[in-house]
């Protein structure tokens, strides 16, 4: 289902998942991404300052920064409003 998500949805999933430090493989498994695409997303988010890269010896993990909270909140509000403002489907 990965290809049917928008980049913004994937950013949100990564940022929420990385609220606690996560290694690269855990992120791509959880967010259903391949290594190449996963790397691109992580580089983008790190470049924008939404993720910080933690290095402990040879282990690298990613952690959402305080800046990510604004994005997570805006996204959550917008997506929940889709169910509140648009008349839903009922039998």
């Amino acid at each position, binding site marked *: *289902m990965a290809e049917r998500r928008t980049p913004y949805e994937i950013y949100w999933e990564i940022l929420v998942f990385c609220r606690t430090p996560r290694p690269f493989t855990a992120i791509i498994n959880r967010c259903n991404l391949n290594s190449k695409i996963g790397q691109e997303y992580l580089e983008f988010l790190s470049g924008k300052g939404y993720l910080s890269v933690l290095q402990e010896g040879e282990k690298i993990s990613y952690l959402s920064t305080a800046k990510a909270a*604004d994005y997570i909140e805006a996204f959550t509000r917008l997506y929940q409003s889709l169910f509140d403002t*648009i008349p839903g*489907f009922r*039998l």
Partner: protein
Amino acid sequence: MTKESTEKSVQQTSRNFAAELRSFFVLCILNLVFGAMIMAFGIAFIVTGVLGIVNGESLGFAAVQVIAWGAIAFLGFRWILSSVTVMEGVTEIRDEFAALEEPVSGEALTGLIVRMMAHYREHRQPVRQMTIICTLGGIVFIGLGVINIFEGIMALNAPPVTGLFYLPAFLAPLLAVGIDLAVGVVSLLISSWFRKYSRAWDLRLAEASRSEDALRQTMERG
């Protein structure tokens, strides 16, 4: 927004989401059952047609009957396949939603909303096919019902059918009219429900696309 009102809003969204998930699941099951019924009708009448050929009925008429019912059985088969495709994924999302602890957290709920959005994007085409198949099925069965009405009228003065049971000749077409019209009307109803479902989700996708600008701006500000 205060923390309390945010929490209230999340729980309201969660109820809306649950109701919609339930409605869609029921629709899928209903659709599956009707697809199976239509396929079963088709196969049953193919067998009747073949038996007619064996019993010396006119080959041309029986062959036309077998082909027509074969097409209906195929429609039922396509109906089942499309239903299964559309149902795929929803069952999983439904189970995950049911497993969430109360009160549902905003983020867990948003995660499932994202998955439903992805599911609809992926299954938009089969849902549209479903609308067309159900409409076609409805028209076919209502048409058959109308044919059976004429058969019943023509059989009013025919001698009763004897065998194991003693039946007035018009009774069989009358029963068929009831079945055909009921299946036809429910098929058209299912089709309209699928259309309603598509409308709601198309609106959400359009709204989500518009919201992307706001998200992009949030990203840019970052």
